[in-house]
């Protein structure tokens, strides 16, 4: 599964192609189909979206919604409390 995904408000897209130019993955193109306004709308054509938001940043009509992989949440492995003097902590990370 790709790191990111974009969806388009197809009916609002005006086919200006600025997102296509902005995508570093070259993952966007104009559809061969047209929307009700008569524009060829932008679509995702490769499954390698990184969710970088570049396309949405340049989109004049706020057509694009961008998704990206959730950051893995950090769960604590230990909690150190009641420290009254300088201490040194060494962690053997057995996950590695």
């Amino acid at each position, binding site marked *: 599964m790709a790191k990111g995904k974009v969806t388009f408000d197809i009916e609002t897209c005006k086919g200006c192609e600025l997102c296509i130019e902005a995508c570093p993955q070259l993952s966007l193109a104009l559809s061969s189909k047209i929307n009700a306004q008569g524009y060829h709308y932008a679509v995702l054509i490769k499954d390698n979206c990184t969710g970088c938001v570049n396309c949405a940043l*340049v989109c004049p009509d706020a057509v694009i919604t961008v998704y990206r992989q959730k950051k893995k949440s950090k769960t604590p492995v230990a909690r150190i409390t009641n420290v009254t003097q300088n201490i040194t902590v060494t962690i053997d990370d057995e996950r590695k």
Partner: protein
Amino acid sequence: MSPEITQDLTAEEQEQLECVYAKPKTLTETRFHYCPGCGHSVAHRVLMEVIDELDIQDKTIGIAPVGCSVFAYHYMNIDMQGAAHGRASAVATAVKRLLPDRYVFAYQGDGDLAAIGTAETIHTCNRGENIMMVFINNAIYGMTGGQMAPTTLLGMKTSTSPTGRTAETAGFPIMITNMIAMLPGVAYVTRQSVETPNAVRQLKKAFTKGFQYQKEHKGTCFIEVVSNCPSGWKMTPLQANKWLVENMFPVYPPGDIKVPA
């Protein structure tokens, strides 16, 4: 034709992906009437994103101009006033003076700000009114059909400079932004653009700073956005952005011109 990937998120995608960008709620449901690829649309969107992120939707009042963005109040989900041509900064002055704890911005094009509104522009800046002025400079009058603007480049063909602007007939492109930067009441002057993702990121920072400085009573914040006009320039959006970089930037170079101490 390349296969089009389905719009719908798969079950796996729904579980693993989170939304990192969506249309801000500070834009209304009304579709922009702007031409495909128009810089106004991007500027509107970015400005509204910033208002959303700063959570000041209920405290912001915008003043719309006369020009392509005369309908800005149909798109921006905040209280707004539509001003007469050129007068947005005078209208904004009164609103800010009477409601000093609100965020007030005037949004204008090149004719509005640098032709008919020149006196208001200069004096609003001279008084150091604590507002944000957004100046969309696309070197042409879009709404009325592509006439020359004060910021039209030498040699540029428009409907009122059909053989190309000459200095003898029409003078030089006016450097209004640099002129008002000289005024002591003006705190922040920057020139930005929207033709690449990075440019948009910079503009977003500029708007954010503009509102922050307004909160800090620094003085007038003036943000020029060098923009395309695909219809007026008679180019596709992609061609227009290329032309912008090659021709507009040498005359209107992006960057900070003045920052608060």
